[in-house]
Structure formats: structure tokens, C-alpha cells
């Protein structure tokens, strides 16, 4: 059986509590061997002392004179702070803005799916609108004639 270290004992105590009867059998067995040593006994004594001190500080603080006044302050909160009007911003836009309100939502499955749908929708509308336009050969502009004539003018001026 591998001997237990101080660190392992402390971790087991935090994980399973002070009562070793509640520990898993194998861990408890190793701990008993550890506690039989001088080092183990000293560690256990130190841990128990700390637990006792922490317990003595954990006295409830709920009976002081200011407790009632504090509760009254809390009870006044609804009178001083209105709730947001339910449904005031309901609808598609608010759902959309709600999705983007939390940045993490952008990368959630729902966020990614909604972005995909939006891109596909825009692409589809764009292609659809493009296909509706008639192909018009007459509207094709040939700028070369104007360009060449103006170049010729410059050339003639230089001459």
C-alpha cells in the first residue's frame, strides 16, 4: 500500500470531511496508516484545531440590532425600483437583439445556426433578385471610342 502524503491527507479531508468513517475504504485505510506516524498525528491535530476555530467563527450573525432595519430596506426595494414592463419589447427584433446581447450566444449552437440561416437568406435573395434582371446587350457601353478619340486629340495637339 502506497503511504499517504500530507497533501493527500489534507485533500482527502477537504473532499470527504473530518469524519473518516465517511471516507472511501481505501483512502481511510491509507489515512489511518499515515496518522499512526508522528508527522501524521501532528497534521491531524493541527487540522482539528483549525476546524474548531473555524467553527467558533461561524456563529450566525442574524440577531443583531440592525437586522430588522436591514430587512425593511430590502422590503422597500419593489416600491423604489420598477420592474421592466413585460412584453414591451417583445417581437422578432427583441428576440434577435436578445440573442446578441450576450456575446457568448454568438457561438452557441443556436447562435451559429441563426447566423447560417441569415447568410443563406441574404445569398438567396441576392441571387433571386439578380436572376430577375433581363440581360440587355444594348446597355453594354463601349468607352474605347471616346478614349481613343480623346487620345488622338492630345496627340494632334502635341504635333
Amino acid at each position, binding site marked *: 500500500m502506497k503511504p499517504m502524503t500530507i*497533501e493527500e491527507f*489534507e*485533500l482527502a479531508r*477537504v*473532499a470527504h470531511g473530518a469524519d473518516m468513517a465517511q471516507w472511501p475504504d481505501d483512502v481511510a485505510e491509507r489515512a489511518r496508516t499515515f496518522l499512526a506516524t508522528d508527522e501524521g498525528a501532528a497534521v491531524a491535530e*493541527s*487540522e482539528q484545531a*483549525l476546524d474548531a*476555530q*473555524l*467553527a*467558533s*467563527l*461561524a456563529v*450566525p*450573525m*442574524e440577531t443583531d440590532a*440592525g*437586522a430588522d432595519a*436591514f*430587512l425593511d*430596506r*430590502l*422590503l422597500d*426595494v*419593489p416600491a423604489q*425600483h*420598477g*420592474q*421592466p414592463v*413585460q412584453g414591451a419589447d417583445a417581437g422578432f427584433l427583441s428576440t434577435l437583439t436578445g440573442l446578441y446581447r450576450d456575446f457568448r450566444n454568438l457561438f452557441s449552437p443556436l447562435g451559429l445556426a441563426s447566423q447560417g440561416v441569415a447568410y443563406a437568406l441574404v445569398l438567396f435573395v441576392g441571387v433571386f433578385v439578380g436572376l430577375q434582371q433581363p440581360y440587355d446587350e444594348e446597355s453594354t457601353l463601349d468607352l474605347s471610342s471616346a478614349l481613343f478619340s480623346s487620345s488622338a486629340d492630345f496627340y494632334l495637339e502635341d504635333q
Partner: protein
Amino acid sequence: MPLLSVSGSENVICLKSKSLRQKSEVLDDETLVTHVAAADRGAYAVLVHRHGLRYRALAYRMMGDMALAEDLVQEAFVKLWTHADRFDAKKAKFTTWFHRIVVNRCLDEKRKRTHDPLPEGFDQEDEAENAEETMVTDSANRALRTAVEGLPDRQRVAVTLSYFDGLSNVEAADVMDLKLKAYESLLVRARAKLRDELESSKTGLLAVLG
């Protein structure tokens, strides 16, 4: 007259006709929050009576200043009243959710205060007076309190949640948004630091007493 009435299409049970005591016996926290989201002041009052002082104690242990602790917890309850609809009972218990709100608010305030300069006329505590106080009968508790206050923020939160607020390791890890093993390691480090601090203060006290 019926004690419970149903209003609206969402079958929100209106509890305003029931006494606070009756409500607190009947409904759990999570159900009460859904009523708070529907602007039920009675449900809000039950939550205040059930948890208000507990969270004040939690904030006080983290901040060491009762007036400030009360202000921070009041802010948390304002958030509960105005944003109760954000609570999702499927994701967490009410107490876990509200612990997070209070703890995060306290940590934010501590961070803010770390960067703030000391107010004008602020006097440091009298070291001589503290030295005398350590010799009174509750010197051990005083030393522990000082040691807890001297812990890094996250370790202090862990000690507060586990030993003063009575949360299980699983609940406390959830509040701090940590894996259970990570939380337990944090607690082990905090305990080790507390033991070291207490040992050194004990040695110092013995030296003073000769």
C-alpha cells in the same frame, strides 16, 4: 374566498392573498422567483425574510464592513426584483444563482477599492491597540479573523462559503464556477495558509508574553 387564484394565460398563480408564513411553508425558492418575475411583492418578501440576513452575513465576511455589505446585498436584491426573469431553475438553484450575484458584486467592489486611493483623513489602525487586543481571551478568534481577511480573494470566498455559509463543496464550486477538484485544491491551499498564519501569530503572542 380561494387562497390561490390563477391569472393570465400563463397560469401564473397570484399569491398576494396568502400570508408570508403560509407561502414560506409551501413554496420553494425557485417557484418564488418565478412569482417575483411576475411582480409578486409577496413572493419577493418571502425571499427577503428567508435569505436576506444570510447574504448580509456572507457579504460582511467578505468585505469586513457591515454598512458596505448591506449596500451590496441591497443591490443584489434590486437585481432580483428587476431581473428575476433571467433566473433559470433548470440551470441552478436559486441560492447558487444568488450566491454568485452577491459574491461577484463583493469581488467587483473589492477590486474597485484596491485601486481607489484612501479617503482624505483616513487613519491606519493603531498597531499598539491591536497588539493589546491580541492578548484578550478571544485572541485566537481574532487571529483567525485576521488570517481569513488576509487570504487572497478567491481563497477567502472559498473559506467563507464552506465554513461560514455552510455550502457543500459541490455547491460552493458551482457558485465559484470551478470544477470540484479545483475548488477542493483551492480550499486546501486556503487552509494551509490559515494554519501558517495562525502558527506565526501564536509564536508572536508567546514571544510577547515571554
